[in-house]
């Protein structure tokens, strides 16, 4: 059991590392692109804020992933530990594979799919009845995946339109952009905090489940581990992603970056409050489209919407399928 828990923590750390390396980096990249901060400053600021978001605000989503989908309290502790490990391994594997092929998948969707897979495997072994799985929560989660990018788009559209009407129309463009360069540092931090609060659960949810986390209280060290993993991810790999993405999204000038980031962070933080594990990246994409719809960008490629929807349809079954397979193998051998 201790070995199992250690493995789960390692797998959770890998998951957190992934989240820091890719998603956190994406959300902070605009500040690098606009040269508001240096790479070193971004890495430090992002690590701290992701960590704070995870530790202070990561509880609700962790709760949803740990016991919101699969009713772990009515299952055997050992099975839950196996299931949590299987979910982390399958999600981790899928994320690594999809990242290699540069598919715009979400870590949140992967872990939700994987936890569902664990639940279904338990059903197939008659430990659970199919109706024991919290389908209503699952439905809410899926709904939040659809709502969050749309909400981000609406909010970003609104914010950018206000900036356009009241600021860009009245003042010198270059001066406005210069001022927003610094304001954007604030929104980038806001995104980092919100991202930490939501995505940390992808790593900590299964760990919390494996700990046999029954009541409302969860040891703080679980969130600390998640936050630490994300920070390490940013520092060891994320800076390269920040560099690459930052140089490519110069189109997102400070006023646009501010609008998109503010909308994304607000949406993600709201989702964290409601305990909904959503994708920060997809919300950011939605927000950028919102700025584009407000006439703020030279060109937005709407093909990405199709790719994101495809990634939704692909991620949940694949992550669930992998979790079922890994869990079944583990039940036989462990």
């Amino acid at each position, binding site marked *: 059991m201790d070995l199992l828990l250690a493995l789960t923590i390692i797998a959770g750390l890998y998951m957190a590392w992934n989240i820091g390396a*890719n*998603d956190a980096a*994406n959300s902070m*990249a605009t500040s690098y692109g606009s040269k508001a901060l240096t790479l070193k400053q971004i890495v430090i600021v992002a690590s701290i804020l992701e960590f704070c978001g995870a530790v202070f605000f990561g509880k609700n989503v962790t709760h949803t992933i740990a016991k919101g989908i699969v009713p772990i309290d009515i299952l055997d502790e050992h099975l839950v530990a196996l299931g949590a490990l299987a979910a982390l391994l399958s999600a981790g594997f899928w994320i*690594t594979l*999809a*990242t*290699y092929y*540069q*598919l*715009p*998948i979400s870590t949140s969707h992967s872990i939700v799919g994987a936890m569902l897979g664990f639940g279904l495997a338990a059903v197939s072994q008659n430990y659970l009845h199919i109706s024991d799985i919290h389908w209503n929560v699952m439905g809410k989660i899926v709904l939040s995946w659809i709502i969050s990018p749309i909400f981000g788009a609406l909010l970003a559209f609104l914010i*950018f339109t206000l900036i*356009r009407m009241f600021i*860009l*129309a009245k003042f010198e*463009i270059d001066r406005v*952009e210069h001022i927003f360069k610094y304001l954007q540092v604030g929104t980038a931090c806001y995104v980092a905090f919100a991202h930490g609060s939501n995505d940390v659960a992808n790593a900590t949810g299964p760990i919390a489940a494996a700990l046999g986390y029954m009541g409302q209280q969860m040891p703080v060290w679980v969130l600390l581990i998640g936050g630490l993993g994300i920070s390490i991810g940013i520092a060891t*790999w994320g800076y*390269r*992603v920040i560099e*690459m*993405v930052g140089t*490519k*999204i110069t*189109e*997102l*000038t400070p006023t646009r970056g501010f609008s998109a980031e503010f909308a994304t962070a607000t949406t993600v933080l709201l989702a964290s409050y409601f305990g909904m594990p959503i994708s920060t*990246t997809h919300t*950011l*994409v939605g927000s*950028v*489209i919102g700025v*584009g*719809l*407000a*006439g*703020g*960008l*030279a*060109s*937005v*490629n*709407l*093909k*990405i919407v199709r*790719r994101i929807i495809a990634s939704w349809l692909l991620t949940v079954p694949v992550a669930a399928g992998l979790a079922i397979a890994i869990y079944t193998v583990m039940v036989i051998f462990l």
Partner: protein
Amino acid sequence: MKFVRSVTDVFGYSPFGALKQHAELCGKAIGLLQKQFEAYRRGEFDKVEKFREKIDELEYKADLIKEEIRTNLTRSLLLPVDRHDLLHFLEVQDEIINYCEHVGHMVTFRCVKAPENIWREFDILLAKIMETVNKYEELVDHISRLIASSFTKKEVEDAMYHVKEVEELEHECDLIQIGLYTLLFNAEGMDPLDIHLMVTWVSHLGEIANYTARAADRFRIMVLGRG
């Protein structure tokens, strides 16, 4: 870079830089046309031929840019202006350099003898066309500020003022053209074939100015027709 999931895919192909480049090529082609006429008057026909080649090259480059824009401007792009308006604008702008090429060729057909006053009028016409196209290039330059400000009222008004300026210059070209036609059709002692060719030059040079004004108009339609 492998092992990176990035959000950069959300940014699509932007045609505006290429549009500006295309307009710049039009301006360069007219500059060469002016030089070609000067060489013609001095009787340096090998140079005239060289300038024709250079103008051809510019036209070819412009065609490549046009193709690039048309290939990449798919319907899945969300642009701040209407896609059809933009393509139509490009089509008209492309005619500017096409007519430069036509004139560049027509100059090489025959060695024309004409009185000095007619040549002087050609100089004036070419200079006015150059002025028109330079103004036009400035107009197209507005696109980056329009996008940066996301088409605020002030920037749109500035651009629209520029459209009018181009149209006024085109009108001045028209007047010079009319004067040249009158001179040519009343030229005593000129070879009728020379007159015919020079008249063709005038009408084709006129088309350069016409298409410049029409492109400016398409620019206006594109900018005002947003939303």
